[in-house]
């Protein structure tokens, strides 16, 4: 009957409108926030009720004393009643949460060291992880800096599959090809194109002040397509304004900042680009570097038609299918998807390729459409190692987070074990198990939140550092990245809080209270030993992988063998897109002219190959040797080059003036020779070219050099070989008698006077070039090194905390032993040895795991394991053992040092 009535009540209460819900919410809020006042009100109300009852009874003739008693009897137990009333008001759970929080805080205040350790560990883990995640995420999912994220903004990328079978490379588009894309109005709302060149920029007002800068020759709609407005000035002229008018340019914010001291007067000023006067008509917004970010931050954007004048090219380049020099970006029409655009672009690319002999193979030239991102200027080459590498780079931050997570969980388990007694007391006093679990959970969440808050600070610092180091990366704080990091933090807290909480509350109360039960004690020490072993085993492979990573980066830094004369050699580059016979003639003339200058020892004209990676098959040289592919970079070594660079020829000879590239003479490095032919004489051996851009199809080894001296170095090149000559743009190398840098101005002046049509873009010593490339590498490596150091630091803290904790847990045992007359020194030694044994078991397990991990990394990168692995492994082992030793020794000493009586009372 009651149930029926209750149902009826419930049904009719269902039609509450919005106002009523709001009222209820307000009331709920009041009951939560004004809890104290409402409690006071309630007590006053009930007090007044009692008084009224009393006075009524007195009026009926009772004595005051008996009236009060009767009223009290009638009213019932005031405290119980008030409790019921509070329940009726609702919101009780808030109170218990507050209680839990207060209790948790008290607990943390009692154990400050482990609390701080856990918070710091987690904060560093969360912070570092979020920063790395944000950087990686920004790189793969954000457009280049200064460009707003927009799904309709895409790149059109030229693809070239003609170079090496199975690989795709980027190619530029020709102007006619661009026009064909731009004509697809049903697919693209607008298509912009640009051409990139290096220029010599003269910002001096009265006398020349030369800078090396990057010029982008762009279509009139370039800024509009990228959705960028000039920070200052009107910007580039609209379409239709063509030749004849003076040249104009928009300069990059960095250029404006550094060389025009942010002056607004810069608009209208004239600078010289490759000696051509150009008027500045705008300053690009901060951080904007265009659709491609590589290269210098000193940039200028000019109309496409200015290219012929500034770069000394021919205007007819715009009409030819053969001269491909354009990158492209586009806005899609509203309802067009990237996939649809892709299909259209592919069809056009295939058709436009027909006109040019270079793309005779079907499918050799293609194009695709991809959303505008910072790192997708070049298409993915389709090599599996790169994908694995990318996966690895995503894994490393997760691995770093794993270290503090395991550390914190181990600490929490340890703490929960330590609190078993407290929990048992509370259980025996009648605390509900659920309530206890909730209490422990609250503490864990509290811990994670504190760590997350501190992590925010770490993130802030980390992002600042990254933003300063990588101007070409638009760092954005991504809600998903933050949600990820904080989700992980809370999840860590919950996961690692729940398991010990459940474990601790499941134990038999009596056993723990006695704490004498042998089973419990041994189970506890087993669990703790297991924890220590597990932690050491887990930490080790992570540290090892970090070490390998750092070592690789450091190896790259070190592997920059330079010429012994690097400060005496000037690398002089000229700005040309293609070598014309006239240009070659000018260069020869300059060579002769430079040779006559004072202080100059040698001047060499050297062509650098554009595409210079060659796969060779060493098959058929010695009987029974299987064919194997080798890949190395080909460089030209005109006669005298090796000598000029100071590269020693250890066998055979270097090139003579009579050697031709077609003859296939090749000089290889000692390492390569050893790899292919072992100790046998490599001179006269033949290598067949499988792929590459060399004119020769077969090479004959004529010499072997010591490749530790590489002349012009490039960190990306693993092994190199020299041929007599290559097709490609040439530059001049000048070796001076003394330091080369003072000669540079003279070289510039002479070049400007002798060959004004051939703009000199840079004259830098090899030493300076190497230093700058090392700086770039160091900047890129700092993240990895920082990560490694943080991982090391985290592991050391965690390991110390856990081992020390496990030992200090046995204070009682130490106390008993010393009380029974054991020599403290011996007790310490015993604990030390026991701790060491546990650490060694962990090490052995970890070492096995490490070997597997390193194998996996090597496999995914497709590279042989790094040299120095043994060194890293030894370092890691030493570190782990050292930390474990200190962590065992210190608390054991302390425990043995205290009064046995205190030790016995300790728990």
């Amino acid at each position, binding site marked *: *009957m*009651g149930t*029926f*009535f*209750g149902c*009826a*009540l419930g049904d*009719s*209460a269902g039609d*509450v409108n919005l*106002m*009523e819900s709001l*009222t*209820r919410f307000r*009331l*709920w809020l009041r*009951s939560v926030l004004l809890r104290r006042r409402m409690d006071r*009100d*309630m007590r*006053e*109300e*009930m007090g*007044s*009720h009692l*008084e*009224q*009852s009393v006075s009524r009874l007195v009026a009926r003739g009772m004595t005051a004393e008996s009236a009060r008693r009767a009223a009290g009897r*009638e*009213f*019932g137990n005031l405290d*119980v*009643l008030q409790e*019921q*009333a509070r*329940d*009726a*008001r*609702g919101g009780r759970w808030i109170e218990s949460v507050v209680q839990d929080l207060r209790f948790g805080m008290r607990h943390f205040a009692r154990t400050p060291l482990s609390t701080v350790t856990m918070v710091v560990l987690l904060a560093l883990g969360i912070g570092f992880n979020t920063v790395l995640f944000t950087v990686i995420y920004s790189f793969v999912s954000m457009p280049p800096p200064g460009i707003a994220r927009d799904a309709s903004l895409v790149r059109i990328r030229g693809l070239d599959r003609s170079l090496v079978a199975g690989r795709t490379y980027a190619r530029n588009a020709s102007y006619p090809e661009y026009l064909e894309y731009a004509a697809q109005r049903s697919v693209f709302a607008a298509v912009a194109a640009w051409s990139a060149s290096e220029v010599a920029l003269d910002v001096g007002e009265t006398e020349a002040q030369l800078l090396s800068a990057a010029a982008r020759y762009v279509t009139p709609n370039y800024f509009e397509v990228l959705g960028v407005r000039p920070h200052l000035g009107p910007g580039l002229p609209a379409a239709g304004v063509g030749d004849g008018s003076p040249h104009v340019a928009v300069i990059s914010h960095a250029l404006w900042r550094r060389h025009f001291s942010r002056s607004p007067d810069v608009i209208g000023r004239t600078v010289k680009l490759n000696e051509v006067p150009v008027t500045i008509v705008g300053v690009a917004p901060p951080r904007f570097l265009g659709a491609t970010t590589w290269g210098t931050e000193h940039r200028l954007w000019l109309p496409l038609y200015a290219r012929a004048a500034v770069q000394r090219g021919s205007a007819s380049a715009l009409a030819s299918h053969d001269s491909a020099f354009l990158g492209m970006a586009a806005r899609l029409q509203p309802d067009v998807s990237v996939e649809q655009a892709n299909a259209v672009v592919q069809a056009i690319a295939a058709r436009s390729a027909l006109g040019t002999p270079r793309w005779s193979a079907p499918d050799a030239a293609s194009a695709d459409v991809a959303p505008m991102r910072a790192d997708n200027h070049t298409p993915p080459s389709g090599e599996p190692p790169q994908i694995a590498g990318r996966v690895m780079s995503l894994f490393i931050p997760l691995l770093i987070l794993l270290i503090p997570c395991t550390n914190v969980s181990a600490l929490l388990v340890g703490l929960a074990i330590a609190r078993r007694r407290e929990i048992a007391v509370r259980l025996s006093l009648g605390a509900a198990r659920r309530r206890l679990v909730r209490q422990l959970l609250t503490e864990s969440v509290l811990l994670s939140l504190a760590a997350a808050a501190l992590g925010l600070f770490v993130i802030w610092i980390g992002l600042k550092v990254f933003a300063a180091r990588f101007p070409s990366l638009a760092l954005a704080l991504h809600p998903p990245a933050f949600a990820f990091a904080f989700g992980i933090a809370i999840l860590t807290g919950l996961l690692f809080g729940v398991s010990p909480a459940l474990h601790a509350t499941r134990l038999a109360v009596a056993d723990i209270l006695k704490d004498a039960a042998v089973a419990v004690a041994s189970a506890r020490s087993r669990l703790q030993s297991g924890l220590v072993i597990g932690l050491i085993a887990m930490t080790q492979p992570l540290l090892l992988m970090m070490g390998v990573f750092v070592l690789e980066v450091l190896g790259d830094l070190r592997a920059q063998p330079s010429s012994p004369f690097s400060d005496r050699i000037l690398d002089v580059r000229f700005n040309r897109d293609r070598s014309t016979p006239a240009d070659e003639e000018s260069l020869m003339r300059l060579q002769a002219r430079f040779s006559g200058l004072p202080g100059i020892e040698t001047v060499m004209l050297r062509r650098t190959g554009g595409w210079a990676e060659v796969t060779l098959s060493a098959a058929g040289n010695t009987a029974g040797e299987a064919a194997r592919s080798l890949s190395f970079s080909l460089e030209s070594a005109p006669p005298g080059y090796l000598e000029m660079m100071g590269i020693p020829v250890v066998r055979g000879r270097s090139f003579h003036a009579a050697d031709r590239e077609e003859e296939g003479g090749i000089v290889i490095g000692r390492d390569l020779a050893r790899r292919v032919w072992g100790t046998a004489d490599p001179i006269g051996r033949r290598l067949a070219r499988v792929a590459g851009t060399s004119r020769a199809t077969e090479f004959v080894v004529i010499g072997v050099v010591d490749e530790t001296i590489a002349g012009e170095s490039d960190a990306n090149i693993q092994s190199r070989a020299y041929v007599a000559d290559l097709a490609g743009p040439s530059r001049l190398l000048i070796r001076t008698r003394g330091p080369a840098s003072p000669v540079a101005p003279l070289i510039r002046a002479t070049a400007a006077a002798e060959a004004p049509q051939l703009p000199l873009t840079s004259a830098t010593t090899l030493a300076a070039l190497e230093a700058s490339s090392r700086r770039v590498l160091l900047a890129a490596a700092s993240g990895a090194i920082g990560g490694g150091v943080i991982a090391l630091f985290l592991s050391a803290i965690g390991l110390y905390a856990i081992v020390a904790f496990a030992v200090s847990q046995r204070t009682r045992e130490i106390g008993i032993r010393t009380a029974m007359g054991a020599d403290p020194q011996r007790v310490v030694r015993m604990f030390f040895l026991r701790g060491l044994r546990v650490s060694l078991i962990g090490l052995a397990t970890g070492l096995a795991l490490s070997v597997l991990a390193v194998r996996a990394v090597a496999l995914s990168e497709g590279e042989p394991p790094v040299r120095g692995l043994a060194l890293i492994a030894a370092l890691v082992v030493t570190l782990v053992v050292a930390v474990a030793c200190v962590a065992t020794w210190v608390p054991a000493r302390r425990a043995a040092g205290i009064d046995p009586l205190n030790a016995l009372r300790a728990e």
Partner: protein
Amino acid sequence: MPGANTPLLQGTLDLIVLQLLQAEPTNGYDLTLRIQAITKDVLNVNAGSLYPALYRLEQRGLIRAAWDETASGRRAKVYSVTASGRRHLASQRETWERFSGALSAILRVT
């Protein structure tokens, strides 16, 4: 005397409180007296049930409370029915009348 009381049917206390407060806003003590008086001591609602009921109704927004002076010059919390409380009471009364009618009909069956 309390032994002679008829126990309250579950859920009816809310109805009683709302009905009496709609007739005249008053305080908790007065409410217990009135229930006794009107039901001629058949129903005796003690403070232990009344106050939780009052707070529950207040929390649901069906009644509201304000501090006021009683006739005897004593400060007391006076409860009155809100608009939504009146709507609630009306629907509850209807439900109750239907229910009690049905129950009487059943009890008349012999």
